């Protein structure tokens, strides 16, 4: 078992930091290029969601917590924010659904997380935040 956590400001320049951190963390498994890209992309989607949606200007502290653990070739990731929560989860996970059409968000974030990982779940509470859990089993090849 190995684990890590990284807490950073919900700013778009930290998306690269999150991708780099998770890539380094899974390297001990010798992942394929495709597996590594899948994980990087899913984490980027989850972090981007928190950057774009979680916090409006009324929040003073805007932070994201990235947690990861590795056990028996299973990678488990949590991307957690402490923001406003998701109003309508059923709508949010639909492909092409977005509340940010004006800034040309595609609405594909959750769809990509679901397709690129083996397991995917969301917990959200109004005014408390959102936790996205992503799991990938590297033993599956």
């Amino acid at each position, binding site marked *: 078992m190995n684990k890590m956590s990284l807490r950073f400001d919900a700013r778009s320049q930290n998306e*690269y930091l999150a991708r780099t951190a998770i890539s380094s963390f899974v390297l001990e498994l010798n992942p394929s290029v495709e597996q590594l890209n899948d994980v990087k*992309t899913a984490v*980027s989607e989850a972090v*981007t969601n928190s950057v774009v949606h979680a916090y409006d200007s009324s929040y003073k502290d805007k932070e994201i917590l990235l947690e990861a653990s590795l056990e028996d070739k299973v990678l488990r990731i949590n991307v957690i924010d402490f923001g406003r929560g998701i109003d309508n989860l059923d709508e949010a996970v639909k492909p092409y659904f977005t509340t940010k059409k004006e800034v040309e*968000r595609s*609405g594909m974030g959750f769809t*990509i997380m679901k397709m690129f990982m083996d397991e995917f779940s969301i917990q959200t509470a109004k005014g408390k935040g959102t936790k996205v859990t992503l799991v990938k089993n590297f033993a599956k090849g």
Partner: protein
Amino acid sequence: MRIKFQIVGDTLYLFLIGELDEHYAKGVKEFIDEKVDQQKNLKNVIFNMQELSFMDSTGIGILLGRYKKCKKSGLNIYIENPSLAVDKVLSLSGIYEIMPKI
């Protein structure tokens, strides 16, 4: 993330280089729109993605936005040589139906 352009006849080539995410979205959109607006008599816009090593769904949003804009002026958009990682995101989004891969 960097972006370069080249014009050959009636075709605008845009070379995307590096990692495209939300942080670069605004700058990339503005660069592309400016280049498209500046050139008269354009017929095609080709996004070369050979050196784009990473893109998430932010890129899909940018491409869809450019498609809507270019369609009004009758421009064709194509995607050239996407890397494996980028190709997977593009394929999943179904975007090749409106901007074919060449």
